[in-house]
């Protein structure tokens, strides 16, 4: 009885301010005057919208892959470091979490500009003769998103690596396995849960990303979430926005369902 009283206020507010607004939005997709399923047919039938959905998946997939590669050395070094250097490296990973995504994206706008520092560096080192366009395309979007999402890959991988019993590696060594064999047959398989968990986080968060693609990609690299915002802001096409929202959420839930075992939702991962 008392338990109910403790939970009731939060559940009531969550229902009014979250569940009901979502339900009301989703209902708009099915109550279009043109016909019940018309918004979905419009979305699926248009090559432009299919291209947007495809681009969203490509960007999310690439960002996940790049994060998986970049996370390795940091996670490994974190799992080996002790004392002050460990704290320094850990704060390096956690510090970006505290900075607004908007501020970080703005910083990349300054760095990736046509006459910005990165292009100057590339030209100064002789890698290119003329400035390359890093902004307002998928390149810029991916750089910005990798920067924001990399910690979500590093932390689960680090946690998997630090749980590995070093004696297993010694045993493998003692039994005559080479470095590469030990890595391939002992170390890597033990890291896999961390990689899989991190990849799921990064991929799911990439799918719903809005600020970074909107500012670094612009009209040349539209993602699903930008399309949804565009339906509402520019075209007042609420039924299309609703159908797009349902599609985006459905993809997210589908992937979560498939990887449910890898996501330690209840272990406070998010609390970091």
């Amino acid at each position, binding site marked *: 009885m008392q338990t109910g009283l403790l939970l009731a*206020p*939060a559940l009531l507010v969550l229902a009014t301010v979250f569940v009901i607004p979502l339900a009301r939005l989703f209902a708009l997709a099915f109550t279009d005057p043109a016909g019940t399923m018309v918004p979905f047919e419009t979305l699926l039938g248009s090559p432009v919208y299919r291209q947007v959905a495809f681009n969203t998946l490509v960007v999310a997939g690439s960002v996940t892959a790049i994060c998986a590669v970049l996370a390795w050395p940091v996670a490994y070094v974190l799992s080996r470091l002790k004392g002050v250097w460990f704290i320094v490296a850990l704060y390096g*990973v956690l510090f970006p979490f505290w900075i*607004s995504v908007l501020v970080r994206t703005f910083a990349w706008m300054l760095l990736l500009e046509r006459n910005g520092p990165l292009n100057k560096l590339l030209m100064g080192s002789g890698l290119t003769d003329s400035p390359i366009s890093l902004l307002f395309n998928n390149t810029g979007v991916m750089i910005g998103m990798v*920067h924001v999402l990399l910690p979500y890959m590093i932390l689960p991988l680090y946690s998997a690596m630090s749980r590995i019993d070093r004696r297993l590696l010694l045993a493998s060594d003692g039994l005559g396995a080479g*470095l590469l064999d030990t890595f391939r047959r002992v170390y890597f398989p033990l890291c896999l849960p961390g990689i899989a968990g991190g990849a799921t986080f990064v991929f799911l968060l990439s799918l719903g990303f809005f600020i970074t693609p909107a500012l670094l990609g612009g009209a040349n690299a539209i993602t699903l979430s930008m399309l949804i915002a565009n339906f509402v802001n520019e075209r007042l096409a609420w039924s299309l926005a609703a159908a797009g929202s349902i599609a985006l959420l459905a993809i997210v839930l589908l992937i979560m369902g498939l990887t449910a075992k890898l996501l330690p939702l209840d272990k406070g991962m998010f609390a970091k």
Partner: protein
Amino acid sequence: MSKLPIWLRMISNAAASLVLGFLVLPILAVVPASFNKASFIALPPRNYSGVWYERFFEDVEWQTSLYNSLQVAVIATAIAVVLGTLAAIGLRRLSGRWRASITALFLAPMIVPVVVTAVALYRSALDVGLSGTIFGMSLGHMILALPFVVINVGIALRGVDDNWLKAASGLGGGSWTVFRTITLPNIVPGIVGGAIFSFITSFDEVVVAVFLAGYSNKTLPVKIWESIRLEFTPVIAVAATMMIVLAIVLFAVAQFASRSQGNSAR
């Protein structure tokens, strides 16, 4: 593996340093950009000055947006902390399937893409007249912050032994007395941590705020968002620097709070 050859160790150290540099250094790029003298953004600036800081602190619109952000964050945090703390205590008394599904419900705002939440809230806010209001934005941010409070207080509650509660009520304490004298003192660090997370979540939030702000009640991130698209002057870098400074202060407070949590657990 436990003794990697020296060259491999050097390579992994170098790679890790590069990636850590990639994580931290770009954020700091906005600081020199904010001290530009010219009226356009350049990195590095040719001439340094504090002229854009003066502009930021004299401009009514920027000041109002900063004030709005603080107001929204305080309201959102206050509601989220009260509701989330009660809910976390309630969740602990549940078990099995009920606990798992209600926890999932509380975490849902983290899982639903924020654009979807923002569009949904915008639609309903329009219908009930909360669009363009401070309170509307506060409610939206409160929903996004609620999971942080539930998680943080939930973790702190693991440090409260059920036997303490039984002992306290066995000694004649009513449920309020037991809560006030046993539970609350032990979960204060979790509540503080949840509050800090809530505050920073609200203060940094752009997407829900962009949809709900309207013309007159822009928050600081909304003002930054619009300025990036309209004017792109160094005053944006000043605003961004302000947000970094605030984040560092809150980070320090959170570290302090979590340290005292570690001490009280012992």
